């Protein structure tokens, strides 16, 4: 059995990220995007029989699927929380397809949202005192959340391969160019240059402020349906063609070579399921919590040889009008990073591009998209290939 064309995404819903919640709650945001996705797919709550939720980082609560299902009037035959960090949205797509292929349900609503801002995100909350290894062996040494983890990856990448800050900055600049063509992006009207990135404050060496995502408010949802339901879809179905997932660690100190991520496993498997190679891909939409994340992803997914990511991003135009359109909505760096919905923005953007509904930033002849979701400190990865 393969999941290739076992299911399709037929509807999406997403909010324009905002710097602060502005009175919105997580439940309210999830409800808004879930409604938009169902309307987009031409489905009502009783048509939906599966519900997958990404746990809101600043609003952890038990039984989120029951809470949202009840609120929406959705009675799922299949529900779950998908808790693989930024890989959750991509992970949901194949989980939904697998449940559909197994005959358990026909239309799975996937919802991710966050009502947060920089202050809320970084304020230590009265969390439980977790008896977990990272609390005992990492937190006492003062890591800067996951920022410092990605900084350690970047530093080691520079050491092993000679990668430079200027090369990393190019990624942020190209993605900002994309955001400037996307009115729904948080940084829509704020173009930047490589020097702007390099002159922004060093936050956690070697990463500068403009290489790091800004926590914000927003949400995203999408509906994954069976081939039968997809045939009645008002919009062109976007088919799942390939998927793979792999997780290797929680603490970066427990990873192998930290410059190579589990994407080196997931991307080839997802591409193989789809029967395509990186050169066939029209759109790359990959998790970009930091510039270094994109660089490592491009290498591990086979768009360039290992260690050549720096020269590669310098040689290619990564904007929507370039030779390798990447994160055309602006990516999390410039579209926005509303919790796990930041990772979902790569799924929604791929659907939009494949359906030809992105306006000024439309990639011409967009038929095949490679998507990657990344959780933790490049710990857990889910790669997808989507197509018409």
């Amino acid at each position, binding site marked *: 059995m393969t999941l290739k064309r076992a299911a399709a995404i037929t509807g999406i819903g997403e909010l324009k990220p905002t710097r602060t919640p502005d009175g919105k709650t997580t439940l309210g945001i999830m409800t808004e995007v879930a409604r938009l996705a169902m309307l987009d797919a031409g489905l009502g709550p009783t048509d939906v029989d599966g519900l997958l939720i990404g746990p809101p980082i600043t609003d952890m609560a038990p039984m989120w699927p029951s809470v949202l299902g009840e609120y929406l009037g959705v009675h799922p035959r299949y529900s779950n929380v998908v808790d693989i960090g930024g890989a959750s949205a991509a992970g949901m797509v194949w989980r939904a397809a697998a449940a559909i292929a197994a005959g358990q349900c026909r239309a799975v609503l996937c919802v991710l949202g966050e009502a947060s801002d920089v202050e809320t995100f970084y304020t230590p909350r009265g969390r439980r005192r977790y008896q977990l290894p990272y*609390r*005992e062996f990492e*937190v*006492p040494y*003062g890591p800067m959340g996951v920022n410092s983890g990605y900084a350690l990856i970047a530093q080691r990448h520079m050491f092993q391969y000679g990668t430079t800050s200027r090369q990393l900055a190019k990624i942020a600049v190209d993605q900002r160019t994309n955001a400037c063509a996307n009115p729904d992006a948080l940084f829509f009207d704020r173009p930047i240059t490589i020097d702007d990135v390099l002159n922004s404050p060093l*936050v956690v060496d070697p990463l500068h402020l403009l290489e790091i995502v800004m926590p914000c408010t927003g949400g995203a949802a999408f509906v994954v349906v069976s081939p039968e339901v997809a045939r009645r879809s008002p919009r062109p179905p976007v088919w799942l063609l390939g998927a793979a997932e792999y997780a290797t660690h929680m603490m970066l100190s427990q990873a192998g070579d*930290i410059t190579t991520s589990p994407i080196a496993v997931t991307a080839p498997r997802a591409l193989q399921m789809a029967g395509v190679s990186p050169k066939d891909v029209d759109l790359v939409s990959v998790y970009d919590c930091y510039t270094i994340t994109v660089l490592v992803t491009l290498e591990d997914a086979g768009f360039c040889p290992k260690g050549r990511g720096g020269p590669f991003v310098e040689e290619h135009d990564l904007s929507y009008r370039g030779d390798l359109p990447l994160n055309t909505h602006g990516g999390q760096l410039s579209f926005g990073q509303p919790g796990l919905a930041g990772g979902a923005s790569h799924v929604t953007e791929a659907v939009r591009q494949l359906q030809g509904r992105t306006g000024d930033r439309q990639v011409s002849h967009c038929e095949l998209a490679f998507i990657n979701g990344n959780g933790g400190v490049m710990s857990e990865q889910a790669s997808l290939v989507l197509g018409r």
Partner: protein
Amino acid sequence: MAEEEYRKPLPEPNDTTRPFWEGTRARQLRLQRCRDCGKHIFYPRVICPFCLSEHLEWFTASGKGKVYSYTVVRRAVHPAFQEDVPYVLAIVELDEGPRLTTNIVGVAPEEVRVDMPVRAAYDDVTPDLTLLKFEPLLGQEMN
């Protein structure tokens, strides 16, 4: 003069990890070794993550290693670390193999390098708890 209260997050040792923290108090870097497959293990566990053996034993490691990677934290997340910025957060690879997260001390942040040889430096942050940090290894100690 009363000692200032230590406000940063502290490890809370349990039965599995206590020998490690008793080791740092005694200025020893203690690791686990699997008696079945021989692999060295950090952080402390109840089973070997390589072969699932329950037969683990403690031994005292050399305390030497190299900086595998590092970063300079310039903005602290936890407010108690704010007084320390900029400080060096690093992953050190021990001569015995395992890697761990730590701080590099006794050197200016701008002088730290990947691959720099380091040795254990013990920081008695409270009367009961000693954190394992690392400092540059001097020339004559290297061989």
